[in-house]
């Protein structure tokens, strides 16, 4: 199995630059997920790795060989598409063996490899059906089977689950994780769904506007985001952001005045350089990190706007007196509903601070 290296990768359409210099190393057998909002360039980057888009500048290496100008079929990759892209006029068996047929692999060898992939994906009873006779989940399994048969060094998945319903998506997610364990190949997986990213990835690459915002293990990104964008993107529901101003700083901590609480004061420890008094910051708190009143160093009074009770937990969408909306996660929330008032506290140990440019202050 191969490692990948992207060095200064750029992509332009005329004057419009969509990938603005990506440097990334992917280890052999690693499961890497590209995640980001629509239009961030994650699919384009994947297509550049596949050879379906020309690389404007930079170097792409797969297994130590420069692949910029190599045909897609000779890069040692296989790709699974969002719309499955199964050939409609071929049976499942023919779809899966199609690439091998063109690689002039002997017929009995093709049959053997198709059978093997079909067994891994439990596709054996479907081999003689046409794509239109299959359900969405089955089609996606065939698309994955078609990729497996090629025995690639690197698997590329382009939002493979976004056309499936919620239940099937969870099922296929587990299938893909199992498959990675079984096949031990390098996988690059593109999604806009951060739950998929968190559950599948060894390493997540967060992209925005053609630039990598942060790379790391899922929990690293969750617990230690590099900036406000990553903090907001990773985690569901997303992190709450509140406007704050520095009133005092020194002795490894900064004292903030919270704008939404009429200047309620909160002291947050920082190990790095301290911001100057008067500086405007953004305070981030995850929904699950609000404590009961009195447990933290500042309490916030809220009025619940909408309550979502999911059974084991509830999400409370509540407004501050100044109309800022915060999302609070509660496990005893079923007892509260819209219109109720609520008081929560912020624990400084779970508070994130971002400067005016959105960079994290640690």
């Amino acid at each position, binding site marked *: 199995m191969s490692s990948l290296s992207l060095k200064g990768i750029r992509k332009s359409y005329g004057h419009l630059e969509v990938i603005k210099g990506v440097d990334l190393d992917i280890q052999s057998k690693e499961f890497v997920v590209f995640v980001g909002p629509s239009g961030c360039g994650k699919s384009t980057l994947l297509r550049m790795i596949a050879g*379906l888009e020309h690389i404007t500048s930079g170097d792409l290496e797969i297994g130590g060989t420069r692949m910029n100008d190599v045909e*897609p079929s000779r890069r040692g990759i296989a790709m699974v*598409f969002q719309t499955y892209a199964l*050939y409609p*006029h071929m049976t499942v068996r023919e779809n899966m063996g199609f*690439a091998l047929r063109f690689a002039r692999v002997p017929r009995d060898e093709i049959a053997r490899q198709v059978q093997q992939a079909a067994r891994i994906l439990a596709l054996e009873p479907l081999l003689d059906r046409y794509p239109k006779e299959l359900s969405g989940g089955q089609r996606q399994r065939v698309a994955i089977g078609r990729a497996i048969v*090629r025995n690639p060094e690197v698997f590329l998945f382009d939002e493979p689950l976004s056309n499936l319903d919620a239940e099937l998506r969870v099922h296929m997610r587990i299938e893909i994780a199992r498959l990675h364990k079984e096949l031990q190949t390098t996988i690059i997986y593109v999604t806009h769904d951060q739950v998929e990213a968190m559950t599948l990835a060894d390493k997540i690459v967060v992209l925005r506007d053609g630039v990598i915002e942060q790379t790391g293990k899922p929990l690293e990104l969750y617990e230690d985001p590099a900036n406000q964008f990553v903090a907001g993107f990773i985690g569901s529901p997303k992190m709450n952001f509140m406007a704050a101003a520095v009133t005092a700083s020194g002795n490894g901590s900064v004292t903030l005045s919270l704008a939404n609480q009429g200047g309620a004061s909160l002291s947050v420890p920082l190990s790095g350089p301290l911001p100057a008094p008067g500086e405007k910051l953004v305070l981030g708190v995850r929904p699950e990190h609000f404590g009961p009143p009195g447990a933290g160093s500042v309490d916030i009074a809220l009025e619940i706007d909408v309550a979502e009770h999911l059974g084991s937990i509830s999400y409370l969408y509540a407004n501050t007196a100044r109309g800022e909306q915060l999302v609070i996660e509660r496990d005893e929330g079923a007892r509260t509903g819209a219109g109720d008032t609520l008081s929560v506290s912020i624990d400084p140990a779970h508070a994130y601070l971002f400067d005016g440019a959105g960079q994290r202050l640690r």
Partner: protein
Amino acid sequence: MSLLMLRRAGVYLFLSIAAFLSVFPFYWMAVGATNKSTEIVTGRMSPGDYLFTNFQSLLAQVDLLRIFGNSFFIAIVSTILTLAVSSLAGYGFEIFRSRVRERIFQLLLLLLSIPFAALMVPLFVMISRAQLTNTFTAVILPTIASIFIVFYFRQATKAFPGELRDAARVDGLKEWQIFLFVYLPTMRSTYAAATIIVFMGAWNNYLWPLIVLQTADNKTITLVISTLTAAYTPDYGVILLTTVLATLPTLVIFFVLQRQFVQGMLGAVK
């Protein structure tokens, strides 16, 4: 009677008249083929027993096998070549991007508005300079690059999923292989619809073959029908029988490809 029923009755009446106007000429043609010319002229509308006599009379006048052979050869070769060239062009126009693509395409569409009558003379000069007059090549060649079929295939290609092409590229297919092994089978209903349109056009083509085909043994069925009508006392029974025979191939092709034709017209890719 309620207003709704009245309206429905009106609709049925209108549709019945429209259906009658569409079907009656076919009925008259089929019935006419079984009657004597004098009976047709006097307005007989019921089937007669003159079919065999008309057929014998037709065989005595023309080499039917040869004429049908000519028509089939021209229509089939013309259909195959037109579909090959024009579908390739339509696919190319839609798939490959270029700065001048739209300009060239607009120019082609503009050429559609030029009537054939205006092209006839220069085309004949070209064909005769190439010493192709009185050959089937002269009939087939000008029809191959059909702008309408190029346009039709370009529109249909918009429904061809781009990811299929990407998947084929990853699978190691070259562009011509993608066209041949992925695009062509995927778009078969489009091809079926285009087959009917092109075959009918080639089969029924009259004016251009009339100009370039000069000897009797090269004539097509449409030219023969026209010759029969030009006689001093035209035998309507024979003429209508020939017309029935000339209609049959297109009718058969239409019924065979009917389902795909409808799908192709709807632009369905399944």
